């Protein structure tokens, strides 16, 4: 467990390195953007020095990492507020959105996948498989707009955007969840179908275990391993999708903050936002890794 945690550190250091290196080649200059096009050379140079942009890349990198290690993410260029404060304002909204989407995706995806596997080639299976093909092909920002047209404009059931109450959460969470529902349903179907062919399932049936228990105790528990791996990967998809969903629904989260930071060339804020996303992704996959052992005692803790 501790070894795993330590292994995450170089990954995060690498993420910061890659982001800083890419931003370093940013064509538009944050400083010129801040001071306007008619700023004197002197003023530009002064501000660059103030922001530390005159130092070589490696020095800045080590400096940033050192400050992050002490919990200082710097000040955003645009708002001149501590980045940590801006991120702290935004991340609960993103967490709320992605967790809601993950719950919807897991419940709906597994339910649909199991039903498809139990009645393969039935009408439901056909519809579910067709539906998941479409679910995987729909651009998420467009799904969001279509749901707004149907549920806000035509039916007038749900608000167009914004955040604050559970009713505001419904459309963004469903939008964000849909591609993952499709992916999880597909994976669950094939995993359960594989397990149902196993000898131990036949043995369980032969000794008279009811079909529900066979599914719950034997099939699902074993099928859950590949599903779990997929859930870890899907969490990354959800975070990326959150950037789009938040933009569509004016959801005040990290994704929108990040897009704003890119437009404003606020690289300090952007670095912080990417770092938070990467950290969340690493932690989720760590949890996934650790839960393998809980599901399957054979995997144990040796990995």
């Amino acid at each position: 467990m501790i070894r795993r945690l330590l292994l995450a550190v170089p990954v995060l250091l690498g993420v910061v390195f890659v982001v800083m290196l890419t931003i370093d080649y940013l064509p538009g200059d944050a400083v010129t953007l801040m001071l306007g096009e008619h700023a004197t050379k002197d003023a530009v140079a002064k501000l660059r020095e103030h922001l530390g942009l005159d130092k070589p890349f490696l020095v800045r990198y080590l400096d940033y990492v050192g400050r992050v290690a002490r919990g200082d993410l710097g000040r955003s260029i645009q708002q001149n507020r501590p980045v940590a404060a801006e991120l702290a304002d935004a991340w609960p909204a993103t967490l709320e959105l992605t967790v809601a989407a993950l719950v919807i995706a897991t419940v709906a995806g597994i339910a649909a996948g199991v039903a498809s596997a139990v009645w393969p080639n039935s009408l439901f299976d056909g519809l579910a498989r067709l539906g998941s093909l479409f679910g995987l092909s729909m651009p998420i920002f467009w799904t969001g707009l279509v749901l707004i047209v149907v549920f806000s404009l035509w039916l007038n059931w749900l608000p167009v955007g914004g955040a604050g109450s559970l009713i505001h959460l419904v459309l963004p969470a469903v939008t964000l969840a849909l591609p993952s529902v499709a992916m999880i349903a597909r994976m669950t179907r094939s995993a359960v179908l594989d397990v149902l062919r196993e000898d131990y399932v036949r043995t369980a049936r032969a000794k008279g275990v009811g079909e529900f228990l066979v599914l719950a105790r034997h099939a699902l528990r074993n099928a859950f391993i590949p599903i779990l791996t997929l859930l870890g990967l899907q969490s990354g998809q959800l975070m990326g999708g959150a950037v789009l969903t938040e933009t569509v629904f004016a959801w005040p989260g990290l994704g929108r903050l990040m897009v704003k930071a890119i437009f404003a060339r606020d690289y300090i804020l952007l670095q912080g936002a990417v770092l938070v996303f990467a950290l969340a992704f690493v932690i989720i996959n760590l949890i996934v890794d650790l839960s393998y052992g809980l599901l399957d005692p054979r995997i144990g803790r040796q990995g």
Partner: protein
Amino acid sequence: MNAWARFRRNRLALVGLALVVLLAFSALLAPWLAPYDPTRQSLIEKRARPGAKYLLGADEFGRDILSRVIYGARVALVVGVLSSAIALVGGLLLGVVAGFAGAWLDAVMMRGLEILLAFPYLLLALAIVAALGTGTLNTTIAVGIWGVPAVARIVRGSVLALRETEYVGAARALGAPPPALLRRHILPNIVPGLIVYGTLFMANAILLEAALSFLGLGVQPPTASWGLMVSTGRDVLLVAPHVATVPGLAIMVAVLAFNLVGDGLRDALDPRLRGSV
């Protein structure tokens, strides 16, 4: 039974292929197929509903949506094909080097790839776009680079597995130099998997281009990109829903087409790949 015969028996794959051909035609023949110039504005007809003059309606500037959707196929396919090429070639090179070099070079490269893969989906592309800037060419490069790590990992895995096979071992024992090994024994075994992955990647590349353009960080106006069209339509969503929703349908159809063909190719070329690609 050969691959084409297997592919042909897959009805969904054939539907996908028909859609891909349709897309390719509309991209190639756009100037002849489109009823209007995709940038021609007619402000008195802005947000026109779908009708006899504008089959799919007109957008905020009174531009014909059908014509823009047809021209949009060009952007989607060009960005898709070129970025897939970047991802496949880059990934193939890195994967082969890592797989062949072994030892510390492999370890260093794999750690590097892991870092790139630790970026949640879309965020790496966003970071690259933030660095390169917007525009069609930069979007293509960003989408291509975004695809490299996954390809490299797949190729490295196959190279490592193939190196252990008896026929590669035998060829090496007979004194075949690495380039010959690569060309005769390794590449022919990797290519089917890469064709499948490349086709499925096309679907993702089209989605990603659309997403970046939707955010305003991809293809720039007035170029007719589907993602950009959805984005401009978003501002008038509540008064003229067709402006945003129609181009999105085009994205879905294109992505669906490449997903269907990719799935079909996978089952036809190498059924063992089912579930792994």
